């Protein structure tokens, strides 16, 4: 089985230097990072290979999750690579809450490219040193293989709508 990966590309209507700043200045990063409805707090941010980004995401229901990312490559304003994972409040690596089979660590690679006046970002997310269970879990969850389980959810939505 090849390593499952999640990729996403997006074009941002801003010069590359500004987009880079938004990703690498913690006071800016905290304003947009995280799923909709969450609020990010950057507890530590040391932008250099081996440096740590320790953060907390507060959800609207009052729950909080910590994460720890360890930078691997910092090449301004072109490339950022970090090892991504959950953590506790002290910054120790932990497994994903509720999902022990979610990969312990994911390699996140970001490329920043000029596209005229705009900037394109390519993001790649893939399990690192993962067990086959973790890879299968990630593949199923992110829907990167055979349409994943999004099909099941569409059917579920249809069923719930009928019910």
């Amino acid at each position, binding site marked *: 089985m090849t390593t499952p990966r*999640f990729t*996403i590309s*997006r074009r*941002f*209507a*801003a010069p590359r230097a*500004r*987009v880079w*700043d*938004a990703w690498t*200045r913690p*006071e*800016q990063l905290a*304003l*947009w*990072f*995280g*799923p*909709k409805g*969450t609020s990010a707090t950057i507890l530590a941010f040391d932008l250099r290979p081996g440096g740590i980004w320790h953060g907390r995401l507060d*959800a609207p229901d009052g729950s909080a999750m910590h994460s720890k990312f360890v930078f691997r490559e910092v090449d301004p304003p072109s490339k950022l690579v970090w090892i991504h994972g959950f953590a506790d409040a002290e910054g120790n690596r932990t497994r*994903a809450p*509720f*999902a*022990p*089979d*979610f990969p312990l660590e994911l390699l996140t690679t970001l490329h920043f490219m000029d596209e005229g006046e705009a900037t394109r*970002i390519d*993001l790649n*997310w893939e399990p690192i040193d993962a067990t086959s*269970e973790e890879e*299968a*879990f990630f*593949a*199923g*969850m*992110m*829907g990167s*293989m*055979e349409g994943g*389980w999004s*099909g*099941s*959810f569409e*059917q*579920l939505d*249809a*069923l*719930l709508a009928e*019910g």
Partner: protein
Amino acid sequence: MLDRQFTALADPTRRAILARLALGEATVGELQRPFGISQPAISRHLKVLEAAGLIEGGRAAQARPRRLKPEGLVAARDWLDGLRNLWNDSFDRLDAFLADTAKGNDTP
């Protein structure tokens, strides 16, 4: 329970079984035919889906038709959506942030 559900859903055959059951209940025999795998293999998959709370079976022993338990999928989906949408959501928010700060509100 969420772990069991994610593991159950990671398998393409089991997802296909769920897709079939979404159309209506079916017996082991009825499920076996289109998949072209042995009855014990189908039974194993059904056991995993049942343990994960994703399907349920009727009482009529051998024939007992299986059906989907939609509510079993809801909790898994809710938790998952946050993590799965991390990058989509963040990119949307970054887009809005860049648009806001471009309108003269200088970057903080």
